[in-house]
């Protein structure tokens, strides 16, 4: 009995020690506190220590990272990956829907993005309407269920959209798909003027709704016996925006519409908005900076539509220099493509605009973390933060670098060597399934047999 108990205690101690990982001899890009050659101690999913010299606990798992580079896990502030449905486009204001309900933990894009060094992303509602649905921030804990992916502490947010996309359903020519009739039910708005009206109208209604509830609460507190206002699921998230409890991610392109939204938000005292895409943000960088709004943009996309014709790859650099908090995003939907090379997308702000390596890395780590208001837990390599880390074989800002290992909450979720060693087994399994399927087909329908 006593021996069994002792054994239990010992194995628990062993487990505790095994829960400590030390990444040694690496070039560590902390992003917020410079770059150093040293070690990172991971304990209980957090960064316990980082420095040139650290205490290595006995029994810790040691990862020798000599010659390797470590950066904080990459954060993508704008994707649509792992969502079974993206747009509820039938209404101009779809704030009542939430893409978190659509999160598919088995989407291979999660693993692909993970293999590209991404550890957290903001998967968003689409841009079909002026005010879209609610978004979901999740960690790429491949293998977890949908609930297990979600970044619980992230502040909730909502999508908004300006310009060509929300206008499109108001245009008879807007939705041209070969072989299909244009939509019969045109939906307001069909112009940028209407887009402003939809937003202004929605927040005006939200304010009245907020007042109705405040009034109700006050009268109830005075002892009056009255009925509460009817709950409005469309306006509730907008009231949260008015009260600073919900963030706004606003899809936009042209300078005029960006300025329009800044002024609407001025009128409703809405702060800390992140403008998404914001490809002409460089033209109104001063106005964006004055209000403390952020910008999440592409590195070098342009010309794919009219509102992207004045897009320049120097956008991020200009916005940054004028004092705007800037991140770079992928906007990936379906497969994770751009998402898994955000490190080299960041390098483009060095080429186009001459920003420093630290400034570049910040745009895919700490800056998006700040925009999503999760920077107290992730986005840099600092003691106390979540151990979301990526090990590269070379400088991550080089096109020649590749991801070797990825940790989330201290747990290793990607290892390139393991991935490679699993492949023959997967191939054999696939081949077996293929054969089985063919055999079934042959048995089911003998006429399908090919003449030999």
């Amino acid at each position, binding site marked *: 009995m006593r021996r069994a108990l002792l054994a239990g205690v010992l194995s628990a101690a062993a487990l505790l020690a095994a829960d400590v990982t030390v990444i040694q001899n690496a070039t560590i890009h902390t992003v917020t506190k410079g770059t150093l050659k040293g070690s990172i101690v991971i304990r209980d999913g957090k960064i316990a220590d980082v420095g040139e010299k650290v205490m290595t606990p006995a029994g810790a798992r040691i990862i020798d990272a000599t010659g390797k580079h470590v950066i904080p896990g990459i954060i993508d502030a704008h994707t649509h990956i792992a969502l*079974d*449905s*993206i*747009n509820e*486009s039938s209404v101009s204001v779809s704030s009542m829907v939430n893409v978190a309900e659509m999160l598919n933990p088995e989407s*291979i*894009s999660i*693993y*692909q993005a993970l*293999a590209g060094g991404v550890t957290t992303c903001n998967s968003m509602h689409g841009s079909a309407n002026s005010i879209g649905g609610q978004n979901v921030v999740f960690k790429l804990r491949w293998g977890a269920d949908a609930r297990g992916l979600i970044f619980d502490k992230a502040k909730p947010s909502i999508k908004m959209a300006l310009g060509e996309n929300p206008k499109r359903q108001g245009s008879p020519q807007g*939705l041209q*798909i*070969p072989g*299909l009739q244009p939509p019969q039910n045109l939906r307001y708005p069909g112009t940028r003027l209407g887009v402003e009206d939809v937003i202004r109208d929605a927040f005006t209604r939200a304010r009245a709704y907020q007042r109705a509830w405040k009034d109700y609460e006050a009268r109830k507190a005075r002892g009056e016996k009255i009925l509460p206002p009817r709950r409005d699921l469309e306006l509730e998230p907008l009231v949260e925006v008015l009260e600073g409890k919900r963030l706004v991610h606003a899809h936009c392109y042209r300078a005029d519409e960006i300025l329009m939204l800044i002024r609407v938000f001025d009128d409703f005292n809405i702060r800390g908005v992140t403008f998404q895409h914001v490809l002409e943000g*460089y*033209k109104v*960088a*001063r106005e964006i900076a004055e209000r403390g709004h952020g910008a999440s943009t592409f590195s*070098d*996309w*342009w*010309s*794919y*539509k*009219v509102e*992207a*014709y*004045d897009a*320049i*790859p*120097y956008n991020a650099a*200009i916005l940054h*220099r004028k004092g705007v908090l800037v991140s770079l995003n992928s906007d990936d939907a*379906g*497969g*994770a*493509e*751009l998402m*898994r*090379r955000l490190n*080299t997308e960041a*390098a*483009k702000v*060095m*080429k*186009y*605009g001459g920003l420093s390596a630290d400034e570049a890395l910040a745009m895919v780590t700490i800056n998006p973390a700040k925009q999503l208001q999760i920077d107290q837990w992730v986005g840099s390599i600092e003691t106390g933060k979540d151990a979301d880390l990526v090990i590269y*074989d*070379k400088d991550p*800002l*080089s*096109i*020649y*670098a*590749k991801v070797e290992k990825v940790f989330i909450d201290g747990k290793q979720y990607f290892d390139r060597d393991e*991935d490679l060693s699993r*492949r023959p087994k*997967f191939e054999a399994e*696939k081949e077996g399934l293929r054969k089985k399927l063919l055999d079934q087909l042959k048995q089911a329908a003998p006429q399908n047999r090919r003449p030999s």
Partner: protein
Amino acid sequence: MRIGTTAPMLWIAAMAAATALGAENNTFLLRNATVHPVSGPAIENASVLVVDGKIAEVGAKVAPRGKVKVIEARGLHVYPGMIDSGSPIGLAEIASVRETVDTGELGDFNPQLRALIAVNPSSEHIPVVRANGITTVLVTPGTTGGSRGSTSTGLIAGQASLMHLDGWTWEEMEIRRSAAMQMTWPAIQMPRGSADLEALLPGLAARRTTFAEARRNQQQQVQKIQEFFDAARRYHKAKTAGEAVDPDLRYEAMIPVLEGKQPLMIQAAREREIREALDFAARERLKIVLAGVRRPGKTLEEIARRNIPVILGTTFVSPMEEDDPYDDPFTLPARLHQAGVKFAFASFNVQFARNLPYQAAQAVPFGLPYDEALKSVTLYPAQIWGIDAEYGSIEKGKYADLIVTDGDPLEIRTQVKMMFIKGVPVDLESKHTRLYKRYSARP
């Protein structure tokens, strides 16, 4: 690194001004640079002597002759200009606006169409792309990624033209007006399930085709190709025999292809299409180049054995199937190289054409030797398109299509400092640099 760069830039500006006046400025000595001929090892502290637009001498010891202009390039690197083996640049300006897009003509067979005649020399894309070191593009008339042409899914799109990314007119940009015939091998297309698409287009589910139907459709298209080639051959035979034939521009345009003189560039992504295209080409005795190869499977060996060149599209894509290895597009170039297949890269795109050097570089950490990556955007495309006697490397006798950089041109952070096309300095400013300067200066 920075020493000696300001002065040449001023000099370039002066030269550009001189161009406008029509002065001869394609003779100069570029000196004290590291020259990367690509066809051979790099030469340090070397010079390139350019006379009348052609490379007259390359080496560590090149003496200035007479009053030749000298360009100081200390600390800088000289490479051949890069070649994009497929992009509708000049034919497509704003991808979503049909009026600005001239790819994908209606009809299945359009061999008579020539890409070059509709290349807009004033396209804003041209200076943007060349600013990253790309001097030459195979302009393709077919609908390829990144631009929406007509709704046509044509099989033979027309003649692709090799063009320089500089010139007052398309004639001045021309290198080879009919470098290749662009063709797409039909694929078995099964509509993919998408909750979003269903929501957007109710009734789509009802229009779903079965695999058997999809295969039948594909076989019908293959049959059409065969019939078109047969008809073109009869036309050619009758004409050669001196029989009276009604002139037909489509069949006329097919003659160089049928004679095996002009490469037929066949887009085929998957093993099944590649296999069919290979068999077809063998039967018809055609000279082909495969393009857009993504999942070649067991065909690689035959492609190598028959010395068929391949044009790879961008490495910046997701794997085609969700159970493919995550790095499948990144390792593809190395797999081709290991199989002994000669390949070059194409952007098959307009807005991302400037990223051509990076798409080649992306294959390097996944097994492609660096030198091969560099050759796949310089020497190899020149060889594949039959212009290697004049372009593709820095060698005596070739045209001086040169870029001068502050480092490896395949690395994102590298800046292209100068460019010469046929020895004439090219402006590296673009709509993007102009807007950058203008709005950086906004108070």
